[in-house]
């Protein structure tokens, strides 16, 4: 029996987020005027405090296996908190200028983050679902935050309807697994499903439904349909959030579900993950070519990146998990850096979103253009930038696991992908134009600089990230 004080110590991060979020909510409601800035600053601070507590959490299993912490959850938690904090910082200036500076936004982000932490720490299909729904419901509202704007409400509604469908599929899958496996606990399921023979058709079908539900949250093709519209329609800081933290949470969840309770069924689901990965990479590379809106471009780019990250899961090895985790960390940093650059695209008070608007940026704002160029090249996987190392790790995991075809397809799609990333650089550096962007807010500049510098300099000090991912993979794979 674990003493209550230890339980409290383990759950501090979640308590901080949950209670802090509610306190902010009460503070916002009771205030006479809109306390957006105060709330968002408080939320960022709460995220940082949570991150500090996450560092100190010991590895443990609580409540009969409902909730677990380990090096793996710590790694994913920190990435999620990082992504959420960056997205909040980006929102400070943007939301005020767009007249959507409501104090509910930071509160919703905090609750979504809490949901993600629960997802990552889930040791049972029930906790998994609870965390996922808390996250999803908060994010649906965030997508529709600009409620007077047609595109934003459309994005929110679309996300909600399709997300509800995915949740339904997930719950259906969970009930099938429970019906045929007799338990929802990860560890107990792993015991039941010790061999492919022990798993009946019912369990496998349930597994497929669970996989589909999670693939939707991950926006892996062919379950990506919501992504481009939601990315384009939602306010850009919300898109920045969608592109970072929930992706990490969904991928971490997928890793822990697939390799935990269903780990012994690798031969059953490996092909499915490979298909998801290949289709995502292909779609991410090909569909992005024709895009002119940079937010839509990023949507397809994120689909492609999830395809690459899935390669590590498809390998099903510890090296594969490590590769996926490294890829995610690099992706999160590149992603919030890029969204900071997109938010900075503001001319005479109005947000602009097409790639052509960037023409001539390198002459007027060399630092800004260089940051975006570094991020784009990194997304294309050009060394010595960090994106290359993510790809290197997943490809080497795939080849070591004998998935040569997957690696070859990955390499070919990354060349196609390079074409459209390169086009952004081309427009900024080679095309003549007068972007005349407004002065960028300090917070946005900060996030942009952090993203670009971390992306460019990972090559010099890769050790800590690699070691952390390795420890996390070891914790997951035992």
């Amino acid at each position: 029996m674990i003493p209550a004080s230890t339980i409290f110590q383990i759950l501090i991060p979640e308590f901080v987020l949950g209670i802090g979020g509610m306190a902010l909510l009460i503070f916002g409601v009771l205030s006479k005027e809109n306390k957006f800035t105060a709330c968002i600053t408080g939320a960022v601070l709460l995220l940082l405090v949570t991150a500090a507590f996450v560092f100190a959490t010991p590895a443990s299993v609580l409540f009969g296996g409902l909730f677990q912490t380990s090096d793996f959850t710590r790694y994913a938690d920190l990435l999620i908190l990082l992504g959420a904090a960056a997205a909040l910082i980006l929102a400070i200036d943007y939301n005020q200028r767009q007249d959507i500076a409501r104090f509910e936004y930071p509160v919703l982000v905090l609750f979504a983050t809490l949901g993600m932490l629960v997802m990552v720490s889930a040791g049972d299909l029930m906790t998994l679902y609870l965390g996922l729904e808390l996250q999803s419901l908060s994010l649906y509202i965030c997508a529709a935050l600009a409620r007077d704007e047609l595109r934003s409400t459309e994005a929110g509604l679309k996300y909600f309807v399709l997300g509800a469908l995915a949740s339904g599929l997930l719950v259906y899958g969970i009930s099938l697994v429970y019906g045929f496996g007799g338990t929802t606990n990860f560890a107990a399921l792993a015991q039941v499903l010790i061999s492919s023979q022990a798993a009946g058709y019912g369990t496998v079908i349930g597994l497929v439904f669970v996989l589909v539900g999670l693939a939707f949250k991950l926006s892996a093709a062919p379950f990506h349909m919501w992504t481009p519209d939601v990315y384009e329609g939602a306010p850009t800081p919300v898109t920045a959030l969608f592109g970072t933290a929930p992706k990490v949470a969904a991928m971490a969840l997928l890793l822990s579900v697939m390799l935990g309770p269903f780990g012994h069924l690798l031969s059953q689901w490996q092909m499915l993950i490979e298909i998801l990965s290949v289709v995502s990479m292909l779609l991410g590379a090909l569909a992005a070519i024709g895009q002119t809106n940079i937010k839509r471009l990023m949507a397809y780019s994120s689909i492609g990146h999830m395809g690459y990250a899935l390669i590590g899961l498809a390998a099903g090895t510890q090296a594969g998990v490590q590769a996926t985790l490294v890829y995610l960390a690099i992706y999160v940093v590149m992603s919030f850096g890029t969204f900071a650059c997109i938010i900075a695209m503001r001319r005479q008070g109005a947000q602009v979103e097409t790639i052509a608007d960037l023409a001539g940026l390198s002459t007027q704002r060399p630092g800004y253009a260089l940051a975006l160029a570094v991020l784009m090249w990194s997304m294309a996987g050009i060394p010595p930038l960090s994106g290359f190392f993510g790809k290197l790790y997943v490809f080497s995991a795939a080849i070591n696991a004998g998935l040569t075809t997957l690696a070859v397809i990955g390499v070919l799609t990354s060349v196609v992908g390079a074409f459209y990333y390169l086009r952004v650089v081309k427009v900024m550096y080679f095309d003549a134009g007068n972007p005349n962007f407004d002065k960028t807010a300090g917070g946005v500049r900060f996030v942009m600089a952090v993203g670009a510098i971390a992306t460019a300099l990972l090559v010099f000090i890769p050790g800590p990230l690699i070691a952390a991912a390795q420890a996390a993979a070891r914790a997951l794979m035992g």
Partner: protein
Amino acid sequence: MNAAGFPILSLITFLPLAGAVLIATLSGAEAAVARNARWIALWTSLIVLALGIYLWISFDPSQAGFQFVEDHAWFTGVAVQYHLGVDGISLLLILLTVFLTPIAILSSWPITTRVKEFMIAFLLLETMTVGMFAALDFVLFYIFFEAVLLPMYLIIGVWGGPRRIFAAVKFFLFTLAGSVLMLLALVWMWRNAGTTDIPTLLHTPIPPNVQIWLFVAFLASFGVKAAVWPLHTWLPDAYGEAPLPGTIMLAAVLSKMGAYGFLRFTVPMLPQASAAAEPLMFTLGVVAVIYVSLVALAQTDMKRLIAYSSVAHMGIIIIGIFTFTVEGIEGALFQMLSHGIVIAGLFICSGILLARGETLVLGRLGGLAARMPAYAILLMLFALGSMGLPGTSGFVGEILVLVGALQVNFWVSLLAATGMVLGAAYMLVMLRAVLFDKTTRPELDRLKDLRPAEWAMLVPLAVMVMWLGIYPSSFTHVFDAPVTAMVQSHVAALAQPVALAMVTK
């Protein structure tokens, strides 16, 4: 461990990067920033050149192995090391790079737009190139090899000619497509050997049936970089559109990266596949020499003619490498040095005309021998070097390649020699059109002879052309030992049954 007593290779590699950072911090009036950026870049490259000469002096040519080795942990867990070192082959290519960079920076003096960014890109290019030649870890090598693309893409695309964007994108995508195939080969070899350490990989046998696939991947990558026919189509566009300093680095140094890749990876690591592909490579080389020489003859633009001559010379280098004889490989290496210097001289000569506002269309030039005598003498010297006249640098490389080829296949030798005759033909056509034709236009009469900065660029190159031609052994003795060792191990690998090689590894 390290003969110099300090990490000289890291210093040579990253000093230009430090220079680039220093330039990036410049701010103030545009003219002042441009002037400071130029001088910082020039001085950085000159200090690097001095370090390079020190490296050459303290290098021990009697050893075949790697020297000045630096080895540090880098990507832990996947056994990727920060591992640098040079042997005679990479040493000379590093020297070529550090020798040409200051000259190229001098040649960029006329550039007036966004000078700061240009110098940053150029110093980054030097870092990447030197790092690539010094890398002794395959992943490190790949990083530098690919990263060269980034500054070069910007140099072509921002400061290039009218069709620069097309040329830049084509250059980028061609080379990227080639290199990612090499990435797959890299990962396979990594898995096979359990390490990416190049000295270890050199002694790790690979099953012959796999070697073929790896060979194809390497050919795609190095072949594009070295502009082996028919993978050269990006080259005339890129050379034609790049600004003069960019063209110099592309033609003189970057094309050597491909040839270096063949020598460092393909030949020693894939002996069976290399031997099997010998006829293919000879064919590609011979076609490059003859067909591309004919294409060069048909050019009407001086810069494009020189660009095509470069492809033809790369053909000679490829033939030399794949003879697997000491003479052939030494000839190829020597030709790499010679071609690097000669092509830089030729491109600078064409750039001098451009800088005077003159056209490069051959039909509209003429009679410059009388109007610019010093220029004419130097252009003539470089053209003769390109043709391979005895006494110039080109002769030594070509004759060694021909001797090597003769030991293997008479016809290859004959056809390559035919290509040299064609080489003389197009160079003479160019000389006649530029220097001697009796074209008269008033603009031509106003042309002034060389300025001091142009002397400073051309004289070192001319001296090197003569030095390489008259006293070649001061360079060949540096790579005698590694080349001999390479040929011996190649012969041994072919003679030994594969199964036995696997056991005794």
